[in-house]
């Protein structure tokens, strides 16, 4: 059985935010909502200072705390590891927002558009009223992943069935694939590098790995 993960090489990320823009374009998120973010982190004290870039989104956890607390079963974890939200079931109680240690979820209660109260033409075409008043987050571009079953393509290898942020990354810092496949890019990359998963001590089992050095 496949289990999809994302590997992000922090050594390569240059903080260009192309993945952020690609995600907004692919998923038509409203103003102020970014399912994919790249945080610009300065750390240390002069003269020993560093600047790092940290791409974050839903971690599609192995034990998702959002799924456990969801009172409606709107949040589900699929067999392939993707954590999904059924907008028709969600009541927008925000319990999942409180349960997520990655600040990955958001709720928009009123329609919001880039320029005033009315949508511009492109927003009007893609506006989805089902997403008002419910919890939403990164889906790993689940529609693309599902398309792979129909086309026989491989997520992480064929761009048509790979998340938009991964496709857009200019430095090749983001890699997507099936960690259960010994021949997958993610499996090989994790074998030859040192990496961590964020807040692993909380027992969530995030499916996003951050590479920080070679093995």
């Amino acid at each position, binding site marked *: 059985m496949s289990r999809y993960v994302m590997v992000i090489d922090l050594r390569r990320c240059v903080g260009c935010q192309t993945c952020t823009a690609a995600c907004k374009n692919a998923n038509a998120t409203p103003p102020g909502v970014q399912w994919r973010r790249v945080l610009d982190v300065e750390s240390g004290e002069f003269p020993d200072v560093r600047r790092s870039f940290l791409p974050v989104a839903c971690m599609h956890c192995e034990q998702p705390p959002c799924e456990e607390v969801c*009172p409606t079963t709107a949040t589900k974890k699929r067999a392939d590891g993707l954590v999904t939200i059924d907008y028709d079931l969600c*009541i927008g*109680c*925000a319990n999942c927002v*409180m349960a997520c240690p990655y600040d990955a979820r958001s709720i928009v209660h009123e329609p919001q558009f880039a320029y005033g109260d009315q949508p511009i033409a492109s927003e009007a075409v893609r506006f989805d009223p089902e997403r008002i008043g*419910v919890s939403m987050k990164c889906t790993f571009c689940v529609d693309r992943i599902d398309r792979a079953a129909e086309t026989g393509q491989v997520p992480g290898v064929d761009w048509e069935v790979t998340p938009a942020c991964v496709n857009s990354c200019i430095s090749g810092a983001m890699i997507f694939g099936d960690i259960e496949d010994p021949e997958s890019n993610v499996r090989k990359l994790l074998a030859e590098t040192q990496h961590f998963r*964020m807040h692993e001590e909380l027992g969530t089992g995030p499916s996003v790995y951050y590479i*920080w050095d070679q093995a």
Partner: protein
Amino acid sequence: MKSARQKTAGKSITPRQQQNWDWRAASNFICGGSGSGLLILSLFAAAAGADVRPAIVLALVLVATGLTCVWFEIGRPWRALNVYRHIQTSWMTREAVVALPLFLCGALAFYTQHIVWQAASAVCGAAFLYSQARILVNNKGIPAWRHPRCLLLMASTGLAEGAGFLALAATLAPPPQPVATLAAAVIALSVLRIVAWRAYLAALRHDGAPSGSLKALAGIDARIVFGSGAGAIVFAAAAAANLPGAVLWLAAAGALAAGGGWMLKYTLILRAAFNQGLAIGHLPVRGRGVSGPPVKPGWGGLG
């Protein structure tokens, strides 16, 4: 750990105050905890011979008010019945499930004044109070809530508030009222809450939490311990000693016990609810060819 800041406007890796639960959600914990605590305490008052009908009505009104407030909070209120779909793991579902027999048993306890229904409503109250505490503790994204000692804190403050409201309700019920017994309950449960509060605060500081949470909670420490806590104990002691105006002393003690709990929960849910924030476990090896220390800004405590 060295300091860190991040530059992207509006998006921080430091913990930030949760913005999704406002006063309406807090009201559910405030009123629901008080109401369920009051139902529990009413059983003992009834066993001691008191007329607890005003207390039962007040308890049911409090719980209903809390649930109504949270109904106005949710994004899709007309789908609210979906809340019953996940009893396997969701404490919010379990809270909603328990609310049904709570109202039924409470109503029957009011009309029949039979000890069996009073006991049943108290059991439902205990289950409701526990469910509310577990809703907070199971939210892994908020360190100040997920601490295991938050469970006892929420339970103890619900009971202390219940004792407080029971003392207030005693002023509405016809005499004779077991003033000394009610005063003893206010004293005992106020002491329990102070102990639970200080144990929670000490453990949170020891184990580490967002600095904003620690600051907000430290800001009410004196008011919880010396204001509402000690005040309620002194006034209840005056009532227990049967000083002139004992019922008024008891009412004042009750108001302080209940008010202190409401302040505690308001602070915990609206002002101390900083999220986990983000962290970099190892700074990437770039440029100089060496890694750097972990980055997890905005946290305090840790011993």
